């Protein structure tokens, strides 16, 4: 399908919906609070204990540690993405949405554009703020990193992309599962439970499978040098983007076939 002349109006419609409910506003606020607040706690704690734990100085990464809050914020963005869709199913407004825009793929695209636009801004602002704040907290005691180093800039930038992509995955789950609780369970399992299951496998498998997990991809994206057995930062971004794209495509295909 070529660019339909009404896609812009559907995007405008979805933007009104996104900003007119408390769940989106709260989700965005929580993403900021978790990324920046937990980043501040982690970096302040490292600074306090720095001289007492010389062993931790080897391989210390001032970038990854300052971005530690994204480990928590990733759940907030997943929920933002999922609720943007599931709230329409729980209230029944999805029928009004599809009656207004019967070409459902347009609704999928419009919601995606609104979500990506919002999350890119929110996530990038959050990671850059928490990075700069973390380095300011480290200054004078703990080694710091600078954005003028290309790999450092890349790690911070990718931190924002990681959050945005997880938001898209949350949204795709929303289209597929239609229920908030189901989405949040599956999303949490993907991030938290998958690594535990992998950990129980023989170590040779762990290394092969582990690099494909969203959390490992995220670690690789957010560090200056990726962890052992992981994909490079660029490859990790591609793999995660591929997950998001495939899930969204499956969701869109299922949607056009199912009853609303």
């Amino acid at each position, binding site marked *: 399908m070529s660019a339909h002349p009404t896609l812009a109006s559907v995007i405008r419609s979805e933007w009104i*919906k996104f900003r007119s409910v408390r769940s989106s506003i709260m989700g965005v606020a929580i993403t900021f609070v978790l990324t920046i607040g937990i980043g501040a706690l982690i970096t302040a704690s490292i600074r306090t204990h720095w001289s007492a734990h010389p062993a931790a100085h080897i391989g210390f990464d001032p970038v990854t540690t300052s971005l530690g809050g994204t480990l928590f914020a990733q759940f907030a963005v997943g929920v933002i993405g999922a609720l943007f869709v599931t709230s329409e199913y729980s209230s029944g407004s999805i029928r009004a949405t599809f009656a207004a825009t019967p070409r459902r793929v347009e609704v999928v695209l419009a919601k995606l554009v609104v979500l990506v636009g919002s999350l890119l801004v929110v996530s990038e602002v959050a990671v850059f703020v928490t990075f700069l704040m973390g380095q300011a907290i480290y200054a004078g005691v703990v080694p710091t990193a600078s954005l003028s180093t290309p790999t450092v800039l890349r790690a911070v930038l990718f931190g924002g992309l990681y959050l945005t992509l997880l938001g898209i995955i949350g949204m795709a789950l929303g289209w597929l599962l239609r229920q908030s609780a189901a989405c949040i369970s599956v999303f949490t399992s993907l991030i938290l439970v998958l690594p535990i299951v992998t950990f129980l496998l023989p170590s040779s498998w762990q290394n092969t499978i582990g690099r494909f997990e969203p959390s490992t991809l995220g670690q690789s994206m957010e560090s200056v040098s990726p962890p052992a057995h992981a994909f490079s930062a660029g490859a990790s971004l591609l793999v995660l983007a591929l997950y998001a794209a495939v899930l969204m495509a499956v969701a869109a295909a299922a949607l056009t076939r199912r009853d*609303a």
Partner: protein
Amino acid sequence: MIAIEHLTKRYRTTVAVDDLDLVVQPGVVTGFLGPNGSGKSTTMRVIMGLDRPSRGRATVNGQPYHDLRDPLREVGALLEAKAVNPGRSARNHLRALAASNKIPYSRVDEVLEFVGLASVATKRVGDFSLGMGQRLGIAAALLGDPGVLLFDEPVNGLDPEGIRWIRDLFRSLAAEGRTVFVSSHLMSEMAVTADQIIVIGRGHLITQGSVSDLTAAAKGAVVVRGNDRERLERVLRAAGATVEIVNDDALRVGELTAEAVGQLAFDEGVVLFELTPERASLEEVYMTLTAGAVEYGSGAS
């Protein structure tokens, strides 16, 4: 105009609509009647492109819903009360719908004013009563000033004043030449609102026609009283009528019209004192028609 051709909708184990053919004409209020679970809502969802038909098709103004460009300008629907995110305000809900079909925001305030919700336009829909939610749904249906309107059980949750308001609304919309298709499970409601009536049961078309057609087609009886009951009874039976003796000089005659009974009496030279057609009420007609088609009956009936 709405046209439905050979529509069948099957869900996993049930057939909700079975080979249904319908035409809903503009300029009149068409009542869509059937017991609960008879397939009314399914039919409406298929018309709106929300459910895919298993067979057959539905068109609005000659086009499948999916092919309508800016559909809210052609079709407006109230399918469920309060199908709105409870955290959103009435105005934002309507603005989001308006934006998607390039309807100016000024129209949002117009319809809110029209349904009487202007004073609560910025309140959360979650705090609305069922009746207010119903009015918001009607505002959404009217938003694009469409020529075709569908209302699924619109009087649910409305107070008597609201019911009167909505009846007048349907009539004025039809008088403007619009197609107005209203479902209900209450014949009494449709009898005072609709011009045309379509009755379905278990997904099948049972009957359709004007309100007067339906009551006329029902097996009404004629009460006749004359100076020679026995002779009258004999000729009526000979003419194929069913005859029931009411009292010494009165008979209740089925299968014949009052005109036919009068003519027979005249030909036979019987003097008539009374000739009264007994019309079944629309409610009775409906109960008879749908008696075999009630999905969730109450056992004894």
